[in-house]
């Protein structure tokens, strides 16, 4: 699970003055006639650049029976076009002194290369080529689907907490596609075909469903020219309609237990929570972000201080909430009870912390502390070009303008103690709660094998 605090490019306050002349324009955006947006952020600190292509298609756009296909296609994108043979993409990026990879989320699929700045044009040529001309051969698919199944075994099947989280989502969401794992159910992977991947590619991989993000030691005008040259030739095509698949209201607590080989139990409590849809008018998502920071934003935040240190109820405890997403939101409380403490006591402890905020609120000191971290975090973020590109990409992916980052920070800084108390009262009722418990199973129950020492 991730604890993604806000990651936004623009700064107010502290160094706003330093960057003021540039901040008005940078990042720059240019839209090609085929619908592809190109967003460039100039950062001249080192002679490198990061190039990302984002597609507005993630696992939430999949349907039952082919779960995991967004991610499988991501793997297949490295398997060649008529111009670039299987595996050649990676070889060409490596030859350019670059690094590349890709990632699939619920909301999007994205590809990136980090390169010396003079290689940016080559990267665009490669990405533009595979945006519309992927081979997707059955032979390559046969091998790659096995790799994806190994990835599922590695990251989910053999990871008790991943299994718990997967099971929790499948229970917390009944209608919304967030109920399905990004990696896909194993049986869907087993029965997936090259044609499933082809269908996905044909449906979503078009310039009007994509955008390009570049951050680095570049001139935005030159990047726009290169983008016209490489991406401009690709034809737009109408996209299929997207159904909202709204999650119906929940009316009552849901519980799920997962057994897996482990030593310590884990409790996850997930509460339905709102998401930022209107940057200016929304209030509650910002207040929930600040609540998360007060509960577990630093080493002496409430969960750590109360549950781990004072009560010794938990080995670890945290709150996780992401206020930006295409789909519905959840506010998670996670705890691992100490030896001798039960999962019920852990759950009660987490509930008691929420109850305390509901009845007594949070202090101005706590809130200011969270804001100080937020402000510093925005400046630290500028140390990474990759992180800056991610910010732009993720905001766009969830349908918020990439320029709204600065406003969102202002909104977070404006949250009052009363607003934090109000969201604690509003969103933490049992009717919108799902509780997941990891029930650890001793390894000793597994079949034992003899130790064999073989000399070569």
């Amino acid at each position, binding site marked *: 699970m991730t604890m993604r605090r806000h990651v936004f490019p623009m700064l107010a306050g502290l160094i706003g003055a330093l960057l003021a002349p540039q901040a008005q324009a940078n990042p720059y955006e240019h839209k090609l006639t085929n619908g592809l947006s190109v967003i460039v952020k100039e950062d001249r600190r080192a002679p490198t650049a990061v190039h990302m292509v984002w597609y507005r298609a993630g696992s939430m756009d999949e349907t039952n029976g082919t779960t995991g296909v967004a991610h499988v296609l991501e793997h297949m994108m490295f398997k060649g076009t008529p111009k670039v043979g299987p595996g050649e993409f*990676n070889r060409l990026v490596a030859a350019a002194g670059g690094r590349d990879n890709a990632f699939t989320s619920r909301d999007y699929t994205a590809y990136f290369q980090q390169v010396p700045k003079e290689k940016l044009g080559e990267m665009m040529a490669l990405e533009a080529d595979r945006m519309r001309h992927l081979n997707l051969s059955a032979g390559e698919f046969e091998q790659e689907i096995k790799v994806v199944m190994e990835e599922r075994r590695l990251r989910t099947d053999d990871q008790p907490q991943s299994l718990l989280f997967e099971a929790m989502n499948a229970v917390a969401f009944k209608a919304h596609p967030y109920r399905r794992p990004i990696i896909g159910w194993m049986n869907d992977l087993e029965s997936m075909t090259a044609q499933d991947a082809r269908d996905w590619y044909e449906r979503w991989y078009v310039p009007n469903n994509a955008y390009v993000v570049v951050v680095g030691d570049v001139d935005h005008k030159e990047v726009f020219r290169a983008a016209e040259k490489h991406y401009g030739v690709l034809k737009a095509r109408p996209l299929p309609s997207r159904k909202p698949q709204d999650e119906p209201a929940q009316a009552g607590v849901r519980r799920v237990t997962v057994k897996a080989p482990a030593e*310590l139990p884990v409790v996850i409590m997930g509460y339905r929570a709102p998401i930022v849809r209107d940057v200016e008018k929304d209030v509650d998502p910002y207040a929930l972000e600040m609540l998360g920071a007060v509960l577990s934003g630093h080493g002496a935040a409430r969960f750590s201080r109360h549950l781990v240190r004072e009560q010794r109820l938990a080995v670890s405890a945290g709150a996780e909430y*992401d206020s930006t997403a295409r789909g519905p939101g959840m506010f998670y409380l996670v705890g691992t009870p100490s030896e001798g403490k039960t999962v019920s006591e852990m759950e009660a402890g987490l509930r008691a912390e929420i109850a305390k905020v509901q009845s007594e609120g949070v202090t101005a000191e706590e809130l200011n502390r969270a804001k100080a971290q937020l402000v510093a975090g925005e400046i630290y973020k500028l140390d990474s070009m990759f992180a800056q590109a991610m910010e732009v990409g993720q905001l766009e992916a969830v349908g918020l303008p990439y320029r709204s980052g600065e406003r969102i920070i202002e909104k977070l800084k404006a949250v009052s103690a009363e607003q934090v108390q109000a969201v604690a009262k509003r969103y933490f009722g049992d009717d919108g709660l799902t509780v997941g418990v990891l029930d650890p199973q001793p390894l000793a129950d597994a079949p034992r094998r003899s130790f064999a020492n073989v000399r070569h």
Partner: protein
Amino acid sequence: MNNKMLKALLALGVIFSAQAAMAGVKIENWTAPTGARVFFVESRALPIIDVQVDFAAGAAQDPVGKSGLAQLTRGLMDLGAGDMNESDVAMKLADLGARLGGGADTDRASVSLRTLADADKRAAAFGIMRTVISAPRFPEAVFERERARTLAALRESLTRPETIASRAFWSGLYGKHPYGLQPGIESLAAIELDDLREFHAAKYVASSAAVTIVGALSRAEAEALAVQLTEALPAGVAAPVLPVPALPAATELRLPHPAAQAHIHLGLPALKRGDPDFYALMVGNYSLGGGGFVSRLMKEVRDKRGFAYSVYSYFAPMKEAGPFQIGLQTKRAQANDALKVTRDVLQQFLAEGPSEVELKAAKANIVGSFPLRLDSNRKILDNVSAIGFYGMPLDYLDTYAQKIEQVTVADVRAAFARHVQPAHLITVVVAGD
């Protein structure tokens, strides 16, 4: 969650990243009046300052029978120091927007700080850092609690196939050498509070401290900072030199586990910091299993056969010979097949070395990607602190590309023949059928 793929691949990046730096970073170096060695890179582009102080206080310094002491000691330093209790430390730092980090690995224990460069903020943050380094309180109650948490985490990790494999691997490579000893239930139980106090007093000393400073401050300010951070430490004596690890006899160890995937490691103690074969091994390993998606292991194990999601090889140079390691995970039923392919790739590579084409590709990437290894203050700090702690030459950055370019196929073959001898190769398979 939405970023889980990314998180995992960023984690992988740690495996693939070599220890390098680049021309163009100007390192200023001096010895502070306290005896600490200082490495400073002025960088004014952002209003931030990063500081790291490294000590020879890693797990290799644990007394026999008390494995885990170095990590516990480092962990408790943040939890109460000077007139601050553990919550004070964390809250004051949070109020400043400063971040205290670090930890203890095998050779090294680190205390690091990132702070805003504003005069008032940084002064307060440096003051806290100084106190954490030189005046930790080690309260009894915190000690008992943290030891219990460490035990719980250890018990949990001992159920994980990756931990079981990793521990068996290090133990197989190093036996009773300090690199092979790892925290266990008994060794943690044997640690007493006074052990932490003694370990801190003996190991966190100015004469062994390497202070690395990167960011928006002047040389004069950096000089004052280095003194501030180390003047309250005893001068101390250098950490004892570690014994040279003996090479183990080739062994294959198979351990049971109910996991869906087998975890496979192959390797041996191979490379010490400062070894002249470093460059040839880096170039060679790129083609074998270090070059991400373009390596031989990736092609044979993953691309051609679909045996694994992740397969890699790397050298981890340490104070004494650090490991060469190949790793992969595969469906348990095909563990033997995947292991055979892996061994065949290694054997062929040892016999032939890379092709001229591979050699050229390896150099092109290692040299060409050089700027990516130093394009942030964070990366500069990581690289310069390694140079400082391990006493690598200050022109390491400036000569790196040239030394990589000079490597020939014959160099790679000879270096691998010297450092990776099959007669000493340890194989660990956990959860293989």
